[in-house]
Each structure stands twice: as structure tokens, then as C-alpha cells.
């Protein structure tokens, strides 16, 4: 099975491509999608699936352009109410990318439509080896709960608590954690600089996961939030509709 993390330091943004048996999936693509198309070619894979863990607020996604250029389908949480052609997924949805099984976990909290993708390499083992956590769980932090226009930070923080403890923390310790952002991003406040972790490491060292009381969690997660640039809401709106292809820009 092929698995690659693409990291953009400028935006502290991590995207992923994985696949097997000639098929590939891209997760949270950055706007310039050439890197995925070239990587797929080099590994003899066809990009058939594009997953968006949520509607990103801090960068413009290349999901629509990548779909148009490759014929791939875009999978995103139903709650995103995305207006571009897509397949709406929900908790428990399953997608096979070659012999890699993708299980969708609905994990609202950072946004209502946030999902995590649990990956199982069926050629190697029936147990999942990694979870792509978008902006829900970061290395050393969790996603901020104040970026919604329709839900209050305390509401989102409560959902985040449930998502973390009822879904992510029930996974085995060895499962690798791959988030969508690293240190320097404004989507969380305290991320570490590593590019991957494990459920076990996060369970033991992530300050947000140590808070075992739901109300206490909500209180802490909604206090002292980092500044929120105006463009965050605009980027999320652009991503809901899908951005103009790069080549079409003036």
C-alpha cells in the first residue's frame, strides 16, 4: 500500500495520498494539485477518491479542480451542505480504495461536518493502522471550536468532547494519528511540531485529552482562543462551493 504525507510549511497544512491496486485517494488537497497528479503517475495510481475532512477555513482547497482533472469523486460530510458535486458521507460510511478500507467517523466539534478517516490496509492486517484526523485531533492539541456561524463555541466544544472520547480515544493505542495541521497553524493553539503521532501518545500527552470532565473541557476550550482572521469565514465559503481552477485565475 502507498501512503504519503504532503506538508506545506507556509500554511502548516498536511494533506495525504494513499492507495493500492492502481487506485488512490487524496485527503484535504492544497490548491495547487499538480503534486498529487504527479505523485499518482509516479506510483502507477489513478486518483479516484478525494476526501475533505471538513470545509477548511484557513486555506483554499483544490478538491474541485482535482476532481475535474481526474474524474475522481469528492467525499465530504453530509452536514457540509457542499454545493459542488460530491458524495455525502456519514458515520460508518465505508469506501474501498483498492485494498485499503476507509471507515468514516463522524467527529463534529471543530466544525459540524468534521470527519476522521480510519484506514485499514487489508493486505496486511484486519486492524486499522492509521486515522486521518483533519482538524479534530492535532498532535498536542485539538481543533478550535469557534469557527461556526451557526453553533456557539460551547456547543461545538461539547460535541468535540464527545467525538474525542466516544470515537477517537476508543481506538487502539498503536493507531497512527495524521492531522491536517501542524505547529504554526491558527486552527489550534498549542500544536507540537511533529508530523504524526499515535492514539496512545496523544492519550498520554495531549493536554486537551487529559481533561476528563465535559464541562471543564468546554470551559477550557472556549477560553483564551487565538485570534481569528476575517478570511477564515471567507475561505470556508469558497470551499463549500469549490474554488476556481488555478489556471483560470487572472
Amino acid at each position, binding site marked *: 500500500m502507498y501512503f504519503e504525507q504532503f506538508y*506545506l*510549511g*507556509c*500554511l*502548516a497544512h498536511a494533506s495525504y495520498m494513499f492507495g493500492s491496486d492502481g487506485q488512490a485517494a487524496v485527503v484535504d488537497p*492544497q*490548491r*495547487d494539485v499538480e503534486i498529487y497528479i504527479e505523485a499518482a503517475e509516479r506510483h502507477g495510481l489513478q486518483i479516484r477518491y478525494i476526501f475533505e475532512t471538513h470545509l477548511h477555513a*484557513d*486555506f*483554499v482547497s483544490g478538491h474541485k479542480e482535482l476532481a475535474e482533472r481526474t474524474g475522481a469523486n469528492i467525499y465530504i460530510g453530509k452536514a457540509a451542505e457542499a454545493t459542488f458535486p460530491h458524495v455525502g458521507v456519514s458515520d460508518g460510511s465505508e469506501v474501498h480504495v483498492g485494498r485499503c478500507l476507509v471507515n468514516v467517523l463522524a467527529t463534529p466539534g471543530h466544525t459540524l461536518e468534521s470527519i476522521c478517516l480510519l484506514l485499514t490496509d487489508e493486505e496486511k492486517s484486519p486492524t486499522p493502522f492509521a486515522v486521518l484526523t483533519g482538524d479534530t485531533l492535532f498532535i498536542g492539541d485539538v481543533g478550535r471550536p469557534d469557527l461556526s456561524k451557526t453553533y456557539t463555541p460551547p456547543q461545538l466544544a461539547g460535541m468535540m468532547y464527545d467525538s474525542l472520547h466516544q470515537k477517537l480515544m476508543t481506538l487502539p493505542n498503536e493507531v497512527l494519528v495524521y492531522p491536517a495541521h501542524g505547529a*504554526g*497553524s*491558527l486552527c489550534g*493553539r*498549542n500544536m507540537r511540531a511533529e508530523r504524526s503521532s499515535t492514539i496512545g501518545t496523544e492519550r498520554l500527552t495531549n493536554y486537551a485529552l487529559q481533561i476528563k470532565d465535559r464541562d471543564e473541557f468546554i470551559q477550557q476550550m472556549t477560553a*483564551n482562543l*487565538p*485570534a481569528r*482572521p*476575517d*478570511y477564515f469565514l*471567507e*475561505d470556508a465559503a*469558497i470551499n463549500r462551493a469549490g*474554488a*476556481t481552477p*488555478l489556471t483560470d*485565475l*487572472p
Partner: protein
Amino acid sequence: MDDGGIALDVRPVEQFAAAHVPGSINIALSGQFASWAGAVLGLSARPILIAETPDQVNEARLRLARVGIEEVRGYLDGGVAGWTSAGFEAAQLPQMTVQELSRRLGDPDLRVLDVRRQGEWDAAHIADAEWYPLDRFKAALPPLENDGKIAIHCKGGYRSMIAASLLQRAGFDVINVTGGFDAWEQAQLPTTATVVVGA
């Protein structure tokens, strides 16, 4: 430049400090360029790019597009070198080391402005400094009297140049502190932390 457009110089901070087009602002490609451009300029900005090479201009355009700034108005042909050869004057942005800042802390006509985030300020800062994070600059410039010099610092020297160029553009007399708070701490100069009174 008279119609509200913005000249965005993407060269490294040292080059900008040495010579730049008056009124241009500096967000260097070497740092978190896209995020700060988005935060400081906003998505409806239509910048004119100033760089050293066409490759840098293209890189800047791409990185701006990644965050949603799509309408670059153009670029300065020949960069700053072209500007000065055409007979226009270049501006400078003075620099200061942390040692010098430490020596000048008592000066009545020197203020110190810390533009880091709240968490960074609370953890440790220079006792005499005032705080106004870079994130707020888009909404409003810091409410400072324009009477005397302002020494601006951040953690490493990247954000402070963005802030300094914005203030210089607005007519303030600014000095950038090279190396930022990291250099201050490395030189073992005194700091203080925000005291949180228990609830």
C-alpha cells in the same frame, strides 16, 4: 498607489530593511507568507508584487492563491533595483539589536511594541513594552501617539517587519528589532510574565 492599492514586497526582511519602495509592506516568502497575507491584507486585497526575480513573483502569486487572494494587480518590473535606477527614492527601515534596545530602554522618546500573540506575551515579555498583536493590525493599527520612535519586536524578527512596514506606511518612525524576543532571551536580558490573579 493612490487608489488604495497595496505594494507587497516579498523579499527577505534584511533586503527590505536596506531599501524598499516607500509605502510598500513586507511579508517575506521565507515565513508563513500565505497565512499572514490573508490575515493582514484580507482576501479582497489586490496587491502589486515586488520581488527580486520572476520566479519569486510566481511563487508569491501561487502562495497567495492558496489562501484565497486571487487578484494580484501586477508586479514591479525590475523590482527595487528597477525602481531606484528609474530615479525614484528608496526608503529604509532601521534595525536595532536587542543589546542596543536594552541600552535605550529608558529613553523618553522610544516606545517598545511587542506584536506577538497573547500566549507568547503572557509567558514572558519585556517589562517596558506595550502589546498589540499583529493579528489586530488589519482591523486597526495600534493606538499609538506618533511622537518619537517605536522599536518593534516579535519572536524572531519576521512578524515584526510586517508590523513595522505597516506602521512606517502610516507615517510612524519605526525601528525593527533583529532577532526578536528569542535574541532578547538568548542574551539573558530581563523579562517579566503576566501575573494571573487567582479567581
